[in-house]
């Protein structure tokens, strides 16, 4: 049995759903397939859903700032669609970037100026009034608790911080993907769940469709890989696509910890999102008045590249199957515990383990491929959640332009932002690019 669509999107996460939405709005008959049971149930669900503008490249800052505007305007973006599950909420906390050796904050500042991001520079004293629980000594370099020097007394103070009043997080990332799915459906999009793709079929050197695990074949001249941590496996299913990428992706295991806020501090309501390169952590508030503590992947931490199918099947013993590792629990919580000395660290780890779809330079690949009709939005490296609505629109326009004859590899598509007055060269995200040395090579992008 075959069914025919104009475009098939593989992956109903927070990046896949907006691509379906925008293509549908442009008149494409789309089908989004996902191996899981509902939208946003994959690595989207494990996302910290942080919305902040500091990136190491001007394009990165521009896109994040543009994305922020979408989250502010969420109901409009969804064209006031009704979702029986309710709408995801953007929580504006403001965003602190501590000035430290762990971040190239001078570059961030330059990018902010270039893009016009609102910000304020703070002294240590000013930070202290905003975050009274913080110890603002410099703890650099980031170390592991197994290292005896981890406990050395600090001697210097930090320089200060860059504060963006515009920043925060989305309270329910899964729900946000679900919202976009409902919006897309209202524009005629179809979503299919519990449907695992096992093959990308071609005909006469062009994309012809997909084959599902149960043998179902679905035809479409356009297929978009938005498979998240599975993206590299899907690229390998399409003839010539993996080989044609200079920038490759693979899946990286990543842990996020939850620690209760110190007694008497209402982090949930009074706290800020904070990127703290000095101790290699980022934090945001979470329900239950807890600190959600993510890692900025310092060089001293082991990187564990895993097979996504094995990971999600819970195979492999230690640390798999959504189980945090004790060593990393201590590393992240104790590091952040230096910044907040009253942070209680429970003996039992609590948090989230999921996968990043990580590219070679931690900058995503938003591109066509060497197989006509096959596109990809991959390598989102734990930092693209906030950009999802922008990416949806950009990818849809890129696909449409390429299908109408644009040779994007030769003449890169220029995407014009909707909210901020600026265009971005989509060639920046090319699969053919050389590794971008300006990248932070971390979740910071």
């Amino acid at each position, binding site marked *: 049995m075959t069914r025919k669509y104009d475009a098939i999107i593989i992956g109903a996460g927070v990046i896949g759903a907006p691509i379906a939405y925008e293509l549908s709005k442009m008149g494409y008959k789309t089908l989004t397939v996902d191996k899981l049971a509902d939208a946003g149930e994959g690595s989207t669900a494990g996302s910290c859903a942080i919305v902040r503008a500091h990136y190491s490249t001007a394009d990165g800052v521009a896109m994040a700032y543009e994305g922020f505007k979408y989250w502010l305007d969420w109901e409009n973006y969804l064209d006031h669609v009704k979702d029986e599950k309710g709408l995801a909420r953007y929580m504006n906390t403001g965003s602190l970037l501590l000035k430290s050796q762990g971040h190239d904050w001078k570059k961030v500042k330059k990018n902010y100026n270039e893009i016009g991001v609102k910000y304020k520079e703070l002294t240590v004293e000013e930070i202290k009034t905003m975050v009274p629980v913080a110890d603002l000594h410099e703890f650099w370099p980031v170390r592991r608790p197994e290292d005896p020097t981890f*406990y050395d007394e600090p001697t210097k103070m930090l320089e200060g911080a860059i504060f963006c009043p515009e920043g925060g997080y989305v309270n329910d990332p899964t729900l946000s993907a679900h919202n976009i799915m409902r919006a897309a459906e209202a524009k005629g999009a179809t979503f299919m769940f519990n449907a695992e793709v096992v093959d990308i079929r071609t005909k006469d050197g062009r994309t012809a469709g997909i084959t599902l695990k149960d043998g179902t074949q679905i035809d479409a001249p356009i297929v978009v890989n938005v498979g998240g941590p599975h993206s590299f496996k899907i690229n390998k299913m399409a003839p010539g696509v993996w080989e044609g990428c200079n920038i490759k992706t693979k899946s990286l295991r990543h842990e996020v910890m939850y620690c209760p806020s110190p007694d008497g501090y209402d982090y949930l309501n009074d706290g800020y999102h904070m990127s703290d390169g000095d101790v290699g952590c980022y934090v945001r508030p979470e329900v239950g008045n807890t600190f959600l503590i993510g890692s900025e992947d310092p060089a001293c931490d082991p990187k564990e590249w895993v097979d996504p199918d094995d990971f999600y099947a819970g195979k492999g*013993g*230690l640390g798999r199957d959504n*189980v945090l590792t004790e060593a990393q629990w201590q590393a992240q919580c104790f590091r952040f*515990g230096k910044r907040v*000395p009253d942070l209680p660290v429970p*003996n039992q*780890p609590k948090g989230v383990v999921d996968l990043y779809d990580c590219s070679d330079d931690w900058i995503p690949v938003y591109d066509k491929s060497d197989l006509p009709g096959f596109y990809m939005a991959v390598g989102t490296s734990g930092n693209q959640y906030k950009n999802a609505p922008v990416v949806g629109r950009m990818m849809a326009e890129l696909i449409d332009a390429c299908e109408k004859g644009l040779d994007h590899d030769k003449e890169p598509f220029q995407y014009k932002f909707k909210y901020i007055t600026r265009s971005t060269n989509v060639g920046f995200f090319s699969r053919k690019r050389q590794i971008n040395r300006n990248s932070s090579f971390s979740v910071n992008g």
Partner: protein
Amino acid sequence: MKLFVCVKHVPDSAAHIAIIDHIRIDENISFLLNPYDEHALTEAVRIREMNPGSEVIAVCLGKADAEKTLRSAMAMGADRGILIKTDKRHDSIETALALKTAIEQDGSPALIFTGKESIDDQGMQTLFRLGALFDFPAATNVVRLDIVSGKAVTDTEFSGGVVSTYEMSLPCVIGAGKRLNTPKYPTVRDVMRSRKSPIQAFEFSDLNMETPKARMEVIELIPYIQKRQPKEITGSPSEIAQKIVEILKNEAKVL
């Protein structure tokens, strides 16, 4: 006053348990301080604060790696630790004897605290065996402890909200329940402060104990496999409720 707290190094309840050779588990998983022991420690520290000059000593029978659990205990307020190192898994009978011998070597206890059970073996008896070996009274699932004129007054909680108040002579053994207190988790400062706290470690064999006559020995471990086969319950809301009651009663046997 010497306040001893017996702590156990147990697999994280969230860890995936894999069985090797039908008899033991793959220990390449996270181990941590038994959660009930957190309450025992918190209570011991509280008693210490009320009795200046007292000392909280955490005692653990476990593999060398159990030092981590003692470190957690010390970060939560224990002054020092005693580690009885063993590669074997001992039953409650031998465990109680080893703990008793080690405690006795260290001094006379004023109070001994344990969790009411460990989350791995769930034997629920070590505290009573300790009591019997010392000839101390013991109480389990303690949700309140007061020291009143040289006696321990405790509430033991039973199901349905029923509580028995016991008065015990000192020394005695307290099996801490979840509602005894709210554990105060350590901060990095606490971890740093306790990093240098002493741990006295020795081998199980150094205790020169006689092997007890009675034994409980695990001869087989079988994974509890849950392959759920959903069955539909149909009918009106009241019919559905009726069927759920029957399932709870006859199949799940919880009513």
